[in-house]
């Protein structure tokens, strides 16, 4: 079947190699090119914490014509750049799926060490001489990853000219001879692939419908976060490198100075958040980014931010924990730390986007909220979301407000300014250094309306109420979806409550379950503190059973929801360091739907 026939596209390609093989680079070229060619792409790379050292790297990309929400449990194609790493992944290749591998090893291999001996009978083997081709056209074996990408593109009939553009851009700034050599490696691979006899369903199908092609950009969760920061007018950023948040600081370090904004790499995470609060106090839109271990260090400062009512935005990209845990593996286990990690009653706002586009929106809105509600805002990401690539459509008009601060109204005569004035919504007019006649001192001590230390019983009661009640209005903050229901409306057998990056898998599982005739819907919760209890209660009222799948061992979100609503939920927890499998969620939905039927029958 020719590619211009209206055949739906849904193929997932996994490239697997050893650190240093160029696996991630090959995957990057593939996903950039396919997004440029007009396909939806969701991509996620898995790599070891070591830079070299022969750790396993896998770049996965799902290329589709329709909107999808997550990677698939099974891949349609596996490209092996290193058989010892790729062999365990052969079972993830679907029936009649493709396995592409090096068929001319450098030396004799022991029995069972070559990938070809591990294929199932219904998997299609494509042996290619990557190394020989690379050596022939570039006089070096180093471009074998590019040859592999070229072969893949040729085999699937992907548009070579777009790969050329992507490679040209990736190597811009490098010597022309190098770019030419890489392009010739691609072409040699492409030609070999195109000349290979293959079955028709290996070819790529239609791209997205034409109407939506123009404004889509391929970006990672962290890149979308950075774009959100820039569009919201970030003034200062203070950070300390930590996987998987480091790329946020790296991208901001390039972009912020171009706009006159300032970025500083601090001596630790404590100073990063301290400086962020200092800058926020001085009127800046200020942010930091870290992971769980960094947030643990920041928790005392987060309490100061709550007490002194200071704006600050902290992007926290979770990874496997506790402690140093699994720095390059994904997990959703810092929810408790984000929600509860503070001395005393120090509630703050927590937003958890569920996809790359959400990262952009939450990042920008976090600055608005921090400024308006005068409190730290944590945007909770995770490695799977930070490093996941999606083709997203960003708004043409900047959607973020420039100033959300409640201004001090100047009254004629001598009214002394009260920084922590009690108001109906709990939000006090805020002055910053430089404002005339508004001198005041902020403090982590309990204080009265003027900001003077005060530990009288009624003061602590009233001020605690002020600090908590002002956050309740944040649930109605304009321009952001803080919870949303998908799937069947009205009463359903099974409802799935989800948060963060796992929500993509939840949606896919829900769609499958509905195809099977199960009445089912899913709700994403983006604001995790304060919880949007109204919509959550309404959703739970409609559900026979409620399932909460999440990537942590302690069922942290399930416990949070149960604690807040007093209603039991079913938990589904995995801590494998990888995204949750759609089929695992689906199995649980089926089980719960069966239970509901049995109860109904009784």
């Amino acid at each position, binding site marked *: 079947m020719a590619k211009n026939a209206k055949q739906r596209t849904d193929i997932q390609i996994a490239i697997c190699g050893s650190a240093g093989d160029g696996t991630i680079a090959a995957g990057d070229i593939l996903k950039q090119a396919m997004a440029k060619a007009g396909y939806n792409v969701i991509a996620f790379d898995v790599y070891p914490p070591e830079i070299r050292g022969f750790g396993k790297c896998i770049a996965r990309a799902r290329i589709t014509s329709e909107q999808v929400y997550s990677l698939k449990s099974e891949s349609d194609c596996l490209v092996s750049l290193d058989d010892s790493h790729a062999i365990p992944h052969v079972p993830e290749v679907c029936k009649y799926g493709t396995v592409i591998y090096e068929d001319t090893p450098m030396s004799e291999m022991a029995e069972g060490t070559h990938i070809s001996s591990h294929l199932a009978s219904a998997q299609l083997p494509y042996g290619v001489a990557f190394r020989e081709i690379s050596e022939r056209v570039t006089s070096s074996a180093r471009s074998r990853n590019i040859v592999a990408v070229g072969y893949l593109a040729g085999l699937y009939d992907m548009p070579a000219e777009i790969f050329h553009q992507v490679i040209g851009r990736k190597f811009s700034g490098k010597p022309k001879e190098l770019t030419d050599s890489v392009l010739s490696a691609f072409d040699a691979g492409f030609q070999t692939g195109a000349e290979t006899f293959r079955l028709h369903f290996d070819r790529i199908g239609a791209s997205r419908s034409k109407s939506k092609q123009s404004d889509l950009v391929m970006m990672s969760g962290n890149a979308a976060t950075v774009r959100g920061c820039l569009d919201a007018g970030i003034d200062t950023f203070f950070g300390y490198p930590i996987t998987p948040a480091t790329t946020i600081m790296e991208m901001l370090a390039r972009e912020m100075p171009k706009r006159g904004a300032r970025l500083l790499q601090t001596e630790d995470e404590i100073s990063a958040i301290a400086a962020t609060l200092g800058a926020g106090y001085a*009127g800046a839109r200020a942010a930091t980014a870290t992971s769980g271990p960094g947030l643990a260090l920041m928790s005392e400062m987060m309490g100061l931010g709550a007490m002194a009512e200071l704006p600050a935005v902290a992007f926290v990209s979770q990874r496997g924990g506790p402690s140093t845990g699994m720095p390059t593996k994904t997990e959703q286990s810092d929810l408790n730390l984000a929600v509860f990690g503070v001395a005393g009653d120090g509630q703050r706002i927590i937003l958890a986007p569920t996809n790359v586009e959400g990262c952009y929106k939450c990042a920008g809105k976090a600055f608005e909220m921090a400024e308006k509600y005068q409190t730290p805002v944590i945007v909770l990401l995770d490695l799977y979301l930070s490093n996941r690539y999606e083709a997203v459509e960003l708004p043409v008009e900047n959607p973020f407000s420039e100033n959300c601060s409640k201004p001090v109204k100047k009254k004629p005569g001598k009214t002394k300014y009260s920084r922590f004035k009690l108001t109906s919504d709990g939000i006090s007019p805020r002055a910053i250094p430089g404002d005339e006649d*508004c001198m005041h001192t902020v403090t982590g001590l309990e204080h009265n309306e003027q900001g003077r230390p005060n530990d009288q019983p009624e003061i602590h009661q009233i001020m605690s109420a002020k600090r908590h009640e002002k956050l309740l209005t944040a649930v109605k903050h304009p321009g952001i979806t803080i919870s949303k229901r998908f799937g069947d409306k009205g009463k359903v057998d099974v409802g799935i409550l989800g948060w963060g990056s796992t929500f993509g898998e939840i949606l896919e599982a829900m769609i499958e379950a509905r195809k099977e005739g199960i009445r089912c819907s899913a709700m994403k919760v983006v604001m995790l503190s304060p919880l949007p209890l109204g919509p959550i209660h309404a959703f739970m009222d409609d559900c026979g059973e409620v399932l909460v799948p999440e990537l942590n061992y302690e069922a942290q979100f399930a416990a949070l929801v149960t604690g807040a609503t007093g209603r039991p939920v079913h938990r589904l927890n995995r801590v494998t360091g990888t995204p949750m499998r759609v089929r695992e969620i689906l199995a649980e939905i089926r089980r719960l739907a069966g239970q509901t039927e049995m109860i109904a029958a009784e």
Partner: protein
Amino acid sequence: MMNIHQPVYLEDKLEEVESSGKLAYRSQTLPTWCPGCGYFSIVEGVSKAMTDLGLNQKDTVCVSGIGCASRFPFFMNTFGFHSLHGRALPVATGIKVANDDLTVIVVGGDGDAFAIGGAHIPHAARRNIDITYILFDNGVYGLTKGQTSPTSIVGFKTTTTPYLNVDQPLNPLMMLLSYGASWVAQAYAGEPHHLTEMIEAAVAHRGFSYLHVLSPCVTFDKTSMTYKNLGMTVRPLPGDHDTSDFAAAMAAAQNTDLPQLGVYFAKERPTLADGLNEIAARAEATV
């Protein structure tokens, strides 16, 4: 220093204080320190320095951590940030990076600075961030009622070292010099006029200025850094001390038995703001 003081009459003093303009920098909150505490001179010194330098209250931020000395911002009629134990310097860094037009004065004690906050001092100094750090060293934890501090002498008995303190004290002047602070000086709370001069010079310096103030704790230290002991040992730096000579500054800082007062080292170099402006200029050139 060391001059013979003339008798002072209360009426004259009141008139002098009221006409000086210093009170405009004082808040209506009275200092909470113990009678006789060396810290009273911070408020006096900073107020006078601000008066003399013509600083505007609204453009000045006093930042502190936690401890007796750290209560200082509440006593000033400026903007203030009473932050967390040990974290005054990074908070001040954030304020100054956000708004370089502000005058930022950081005040802290020896525990706040050299125990819990020790990690921040080298970085504030090496970045040469344009703030003033006034460190009141009394060699004891006062707010928690008398425990040993990083500058307590060996043998000092406190509630947590009831037999003796065995940890050798730090030498803050040598530390700050080696960290690259561009202005380092020492003063003594028992010499308030000299202290005020030093505060003024510290605030006037463009870059990171560190003023070490020896300040007795009259409540929890009856044996070590008392007015009596310090009063007998402190002396001015030699008249020919060269403030541009780093080696001479380090040599003078080693003399902890006879602490010398005055400016040890002063050298202008680009500040953090200069550096960030340079980065912005290079980045804008790429656009």
